[in-house]
């Protein structure tokens, strides 16, 4: 017996879900989905679970992560129930479920809370800069130390425990028996999906979108690597400098395209933007752009007279590292890859 929980729908709609109660269970969405298979049929089942409020079944399901949002289900849904956006909202909800701190849910559901967090971080950065008399070299040094601490801290305190929670929801809690060797065998899948998002190619006419996203991920990882590990802003190596320019250009160009798509709303995937989506791509654009300009100013010797520019970059970076990466949309990078990993482990 299952108890119906109608409150779940109200909660889910705060993550952006549409009128999923309009669904009359015809299965058109599943039948037009190119990623759906006999073993993993979605999105109708997710739609049904959401209507009934079967939270535990949803928490243990990988299906929201198996969808790469081509939007065919939404286009052809006879009831305008928008299953594509429901899957997207379930992913947002799952991110908040996996997060042990509970901050993800708060930030997803409340724009004022997010704004307050962003302002607080900006204030701390400004206060610190004020306390060191806006000494650029000290700020840049602290900025670099912060990057390293943030990466290690966020990963070990927030993301790693969350991944373990995800594992618990998917495999341990439903008591799925898995031979240990499967975890090793599936590792290759984890790497492949993390760096290529190969599965997204299964969507109809998705090659261009996949390519843009693929380049963006490479650009982002490249930017992370050059700024943090190769210390791009303090490096004299021509190779590192040139590489930094290239990856930062990639990041802000591709994200600008995504921003443009979301404004234009032509494809299903870019029609329904939540604040979390805007925040993610705008901050990514801003990061790429500000990093690019900072390095340009260093190379032209203008930075010393334009300290504010580095401060802007540092604020964007701190907000990114402390809000968007641990609690926001950034986490889909990990959860998607691990969803594919667990999927392989189970099957």
């Amino acid at each position, binding site marked *: 017996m299952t108890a119906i929980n109608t409150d779940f729908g109200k909660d889910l709609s705060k993550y952006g879900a549409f009128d999923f109660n309009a669904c009359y269970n015809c*299965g058109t969405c599943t039948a037009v989905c190119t990623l759906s298979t006999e073993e993993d049929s979605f999105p109708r089942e997710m739609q049904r679970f959401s209507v009934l409020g079967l939270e535990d079944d949803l928490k243990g399901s990988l299906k929201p992560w198996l969808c790469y949002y081509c939007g065919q289900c939404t286009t052809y849904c*006879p009831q305008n129930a928008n299953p594509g956006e429901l899957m997207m909202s379930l992913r947002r909800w799952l991110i908040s479920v996996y997060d042990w701190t509970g901050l993800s849910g708060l930030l997803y559901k409340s724009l004022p809370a997010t704004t307050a967090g962003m302002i607080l971080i900006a204030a701390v950065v400004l206060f610190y800069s004020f306390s060191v008399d806006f000494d650029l070299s000290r700020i840049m040094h602290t900025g670099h130390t912060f990057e390293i601490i943030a990466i290690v801290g966020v990963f070990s305190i927030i993301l790693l425990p969350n991944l373990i929670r995800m594992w618990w929801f998917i495999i341990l809690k439903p008591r799925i028996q898995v031979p240990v060797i499967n975890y090793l065998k599936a590792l290759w899948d984890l790497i492949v999906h993390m760096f290529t998002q190969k599965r997204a190619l299964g969507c109809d006419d998705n090659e261009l979108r996949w390519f843009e996203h693929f380049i963006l991920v490479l650009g982002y990882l490249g930017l992370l690597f050059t700024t943090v590990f190769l210390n791009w802003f303090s490096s004299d190596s021509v190779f590192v400098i040139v590489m930094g320019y290239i990856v930062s250009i990639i990041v802000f160009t591709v994200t600008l395209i995504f921003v443009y798509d979301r404004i234009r709303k032509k494809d299903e995937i870019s029609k329904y933007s939540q604040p979390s989506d805007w925040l993610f791509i705008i901050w990514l654009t801003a990061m790429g752009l500000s990093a690019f300009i900072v390095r340009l100013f260093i190379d032209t010797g203008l930075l010393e007279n334009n300290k504010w520019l580095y401060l802007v970059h540092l604020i964007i970076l701190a907000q990114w590292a402390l809000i968007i990466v641990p609690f926001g949309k950034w986490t889909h990078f990990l959860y998607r890859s691990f969803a594919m990993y667990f999927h392989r482990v189970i099957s």
Partner: protein
Amino acid sequence: MAGKNKTTSFDALVIGGGIAGGEAALNIANNGYKVLIVEKDLSLGGKMILLSKVFPTLDCAACITTPKISEISRHHGITIFTGTEVQNIVKKAEKHFRVQIKKKPRYVIEEDCTACQLCEQACPVVVKDEYQYNLVGRKAAFIPFTIASPRAAAIDIENCTLCGACEKVCPTKCIDFTQEEEIINIDVQTVIAATGFSLFDPLRIPRYGYGKYRNVITSMEMERQLAPTRPYNTVLRPGDGKVPDRLAYVLCTGSRDFTTGNPICSQICCMYSIKQAQLLMGALPMADVTIYYINIRSFGKGFEEFYEQAKGMGVNFIKGKIGKITEKDNGNLFLRYEDINENKLKESEHDMVILSVGVLSNPDNALFFNGDKLWLDQLGYINQPEPLSSPAETTVKGVYVAGSAAGPMDIPDSILSAGAASAAAISYIIEAK
């Protein structure tokens, strides 16, 4: 019909000579009133006369329609104009409508034609036969279909080459190429709109491949293949003329679907598909018939039993709407759907697919009234301001609606609706006399 712009008068005008219009006209005429039926087509009978059998009794449709139609044709109180359309209606006063109608030339003097079919044999032009839903061809000089009423030839002037072969062979010299379009004004006391419905065009759902995959047909095309006057005398798939073994019905093609602009249930598709499935079990005893549905709506008298009977005969019912159809090299078709009862995406192979197309409003419902406008509802059906207390009333006093012009309706309901409309029309004529 001598002379142009002639004005004549009748008690009632019935627009549409289908089963609803015919029934309404008969009721009014039997009460001693003069009725004019204006029918756009070349024959009376509407959609029903083209059907095979009717649910839930499996009576032969023609056996019900033809006696009724011949009663209408022979009735002294009823005048019939075929090939005629209403152009404009002006309500001059209560119980006085001035109606302008346009009679298109048939190029055959109806009264003289003996339906000997010599013209048909002589005509060299072959075009698709719309009355057989394009399954076979017909000539440009033709009798619309075997049980047409009036059973008289007509010339399809758009395809005619004006070779004159028909004129030469006609024994009664009834072919007359000099006929012209006539505009006739008539005065009537009351009007019944029985304009019927139109069928959803499945070309609007490209993922079902209608028009591209030859073995995907509509339910009306299957209806013709099952009718007593059927073109092939058996059921064949159009792609290669093979007798099909595995047939699939796709319910809700263009019904209950916002994306096609028709969000409502068509009310008849479940039942006519079940009926066709039963007829197919008889016509092709070895064939498997599968009906893919969202919900089976068998709400009328005897309908649920009819559905159970189909299940008992071995018709497969699968809950799940077809998402996509793809064609194999041999003309067979793959249907992709989610089996809702099993929560599983599946693909099945069939050698013929019948799209159970939905019911849409007839564009002809937009009747032109000067002064008083006849309101249509959002989907283009004639608006009923009092659907519960007086279902025949429209927004114009003295104008009544009968049959599926008011909304999707099966045959028993259409006849009932025609009864209501005729009673209301007669009351209106008698009122305050």
